[in-house]
């Protein structure tokens, strides 16, 4: 039995199980247990790949290599910690009347389905299935975002659906073009969409078709990454959905979409022998960083603030991968990891803070440090970490990206530095009063689950100070795989 079967099967079965039992009180614990089982399976799979190198599963339909296995682990891990966080969070929401039993059932079922589809998208070798899984993940998150059924959440979900639906349709067109290019070399059998097969012949794929295909795939998946100018759905979806959903959207979904782009970039680079893919990624990455940094100033809602911060960081990562080369790719992968960990930690803290304050408006959240020191410190440390202060991991990766940019793309560095500076000032100016300001907020009926916050921040800190050798080797392999 391949461990991949468990990685994919457990969340899907869990989703089915929770579709029937998700409304019961025990479901919150079941959700955690299922996520934990997925994490264990992902760990086994990782150990397997570390020991034996890249493997196929079920013919050649699934493919695990250092690039995706690290994302699988990350997804399973953040999925698990978010489930832990969501347990008390949802209890509070239930008590506040924002959630009802049927909605909770939908939420739990879709949460597991969402994790399942993302793991599917990560591990499949078939670029067509990758698209199907991404679309399925979109559908699941649409339901998650709209779970409160308020006017604002419906609007956010509608925007999300329409914009991402349009975007992902472009990606499908790109996939069709890719298949067309591949069909000439590999025949129009099912094998022509397998990434490994395409990778083997990437040098002889038709450059005209591939250029167009990559452009469409980039627009399509780029919409889901939240790259400007197609980022409008992202802040709404983050702000109006339940906080655990914001955490997994920022922490996981954006990564998976970017992963789709990376796989395609490898093919496009091989076929094109020019810098189209790199140029597109750097251009839109930089645009996102700058756009997001300036939008940060105008935010009043705390979740929107950090949603824009996600756009900024995804832009930075896209830029890094666009530069290519071993160091930039390494930095991009590291940044993906630490951003996922730190951003979800921030959303956990923000979720608790917003529940305490009864509002997501930043003016209404004050003095967390006196109300609940742990949440306050969590938010403060998380913000410092995401802003790239040493010794957190974000500092290490941003430092690497910036130094590479100075060396290779000097024109971009002023923009990057300016944007990072603006973002720093914007976020710090808003988080500081939220944590240290005057307050009169009551205590929460349930103790917050702060273990995930500090576990994530701890990992983020660790990655800043010390990257374990196997992880290092792993990143290096993946970085080499991405080429540049």
């Amino acid at each position: 039995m391949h461990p991949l079967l468990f990685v994919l099967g457990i969340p899907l079965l869990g989703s089915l199980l929770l579709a029937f039992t998700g409304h019961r009180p025990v479901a919150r614990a079941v959700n955690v247990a299922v996520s934990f089982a997925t994490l264990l399976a992902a760990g086994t799979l990782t150990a397997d790949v570390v020991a034996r190198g890249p493997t196929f599963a079920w013919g050649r339909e699934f493919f695990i290599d250092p690039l995706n296995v690290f994302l699988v682990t990350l997804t399973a891990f953040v999925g698990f910690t978010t489930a832990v966080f969501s347990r008390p969070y949802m209890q509070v929401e239930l008590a506040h009347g924002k959630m009802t039993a049927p909605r909770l059932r939908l939420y739990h079922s879709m949460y597991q389905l969402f994790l399942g589809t993302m793991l599917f998208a990560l591990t499949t070798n078939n670029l067509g299935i990758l698209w199907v899984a991404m679309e399925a993940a979109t559908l699941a998150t649409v339901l998650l975002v709209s779970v409160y059924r308020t006017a604002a959440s419906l609007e956010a979900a509608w925007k999300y659906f329409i914009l991402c639906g349009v975007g992902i349709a472009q990606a499908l067109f790109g996939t069709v073009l890719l298949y067309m290019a591949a069909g000439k070399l590999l025949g129009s059998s099912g094998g022509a969409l397998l990434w490994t097969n395409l990778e083997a012949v990437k040098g002889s794929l038709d450059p005209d078709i591939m250029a167009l295909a990559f452009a469409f795939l980039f627009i399509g998946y780029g919409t889901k990454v939240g790259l400007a100018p197609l980022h409008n759905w992202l802040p709404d979806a983050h702000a109006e959905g339940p906080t655990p959903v914001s955490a997994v959207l920022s922490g996981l979904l954006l990564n998976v979409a970017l992963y789709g782009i990376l796989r395609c970039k490898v093919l496009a680079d091989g076929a094109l022998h020019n810098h189209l893919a790199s140029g597109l990624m750097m251009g839109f990455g930089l645009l996102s960083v700058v756009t997001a940094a300036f939008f940060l100033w105008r935010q009043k809602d705390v979740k929107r603030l950090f949603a824009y911060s996600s756009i900024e960081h995804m832009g930075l990562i896209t830029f890094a991968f666009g530069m290519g080369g071993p160091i930039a790719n390494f930095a991009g992968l590291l940044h993906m990891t630490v951003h996922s960990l730190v951003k979800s930690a921030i959303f956990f803290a923000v979720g608790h803070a917003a529940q305490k304050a009864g509002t997501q408006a930043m003016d209404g959240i004050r003095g967390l440090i006196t109300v609940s020191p742990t949440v306050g410190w969590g938010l403060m440390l998380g913000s410092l970490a995401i802003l790239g202060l040493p010794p957190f991991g974000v500092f290490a990766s941003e430092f690497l990206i910036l130094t590479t940019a100075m060396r290779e793309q000097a024109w971009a560095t002023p923009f990057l530095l300016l944007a990072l500076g603006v973002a720093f000032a914007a976020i710090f100016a808003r988080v500081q009063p939220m944590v240290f300001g005057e307050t009169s907020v009551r205590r929460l009926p349930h103790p917050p689950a702060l273990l995930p916050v500090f576990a994530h921040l701890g990992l983020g800190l660790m990655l800043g100070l010390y990257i374990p050798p196997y992880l290092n080797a792993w990143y290096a392999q993946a970085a080499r795989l991405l080429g540049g």
Partner: protein
Amino acid sequence: MSAFLSQFINLLAAILLLLAFAMLSQRRILSLIHLFTLQGATLAVSTAVVGYATAQPHLYFSAVLTLLLKVILIPLLLHRVIDRLNVRWDLETLINIPTTQLAGIVLVMFAFYLAQPIAQISATIARGTLGIALASVLLSFMMMITRSKAVPQVIGFLAMENGLFFAATAATYGMPMVVELGIALDVLVGILILGVFLFHIREQFDSLDIRHLEKLKED
């Protein structure tokens, strides 16, 4: 593979584009649904013809799937939705129709320009179909942008999917079966979710005007 069949596929492609253009300039919701149904039927026929021309039996299967899904099931659902929501009226557009049409022409040119190099090197039956498919996708996209009501947006979304599906059949003789099934499933689930959404939106806003959905803005 006779020249006649490839010409016939070209003709169906042209009809598809024609319908996409008609949808762009159509004001009435009911006519939109009819046009969408016609487009689905054209798509089913073209899929079957491509299947026949290239002797690929799995395309017959997807033709039947298209027929069931896009000619029967989805239009039926749409009809029920507009009946239940009582939204048969003429609809206003955000940008007036002649402007939309002019922009549509520009989009068609753009799509053809993009597809031109591919049409020249392509070896598949109908060389120009990719450009036409791309043009229909972009026109449907345009329709989604310019409509202020929710139902036409949904129809635009579906029409866009039609264009994509046509690209897949005409340019590559259909995606692998498993992918095609996955896409069909996604579309079906998507339309069901959108349908449910329409009711929620109606409940929340007492209207299906998308302009109510503009509260979440940067300020």
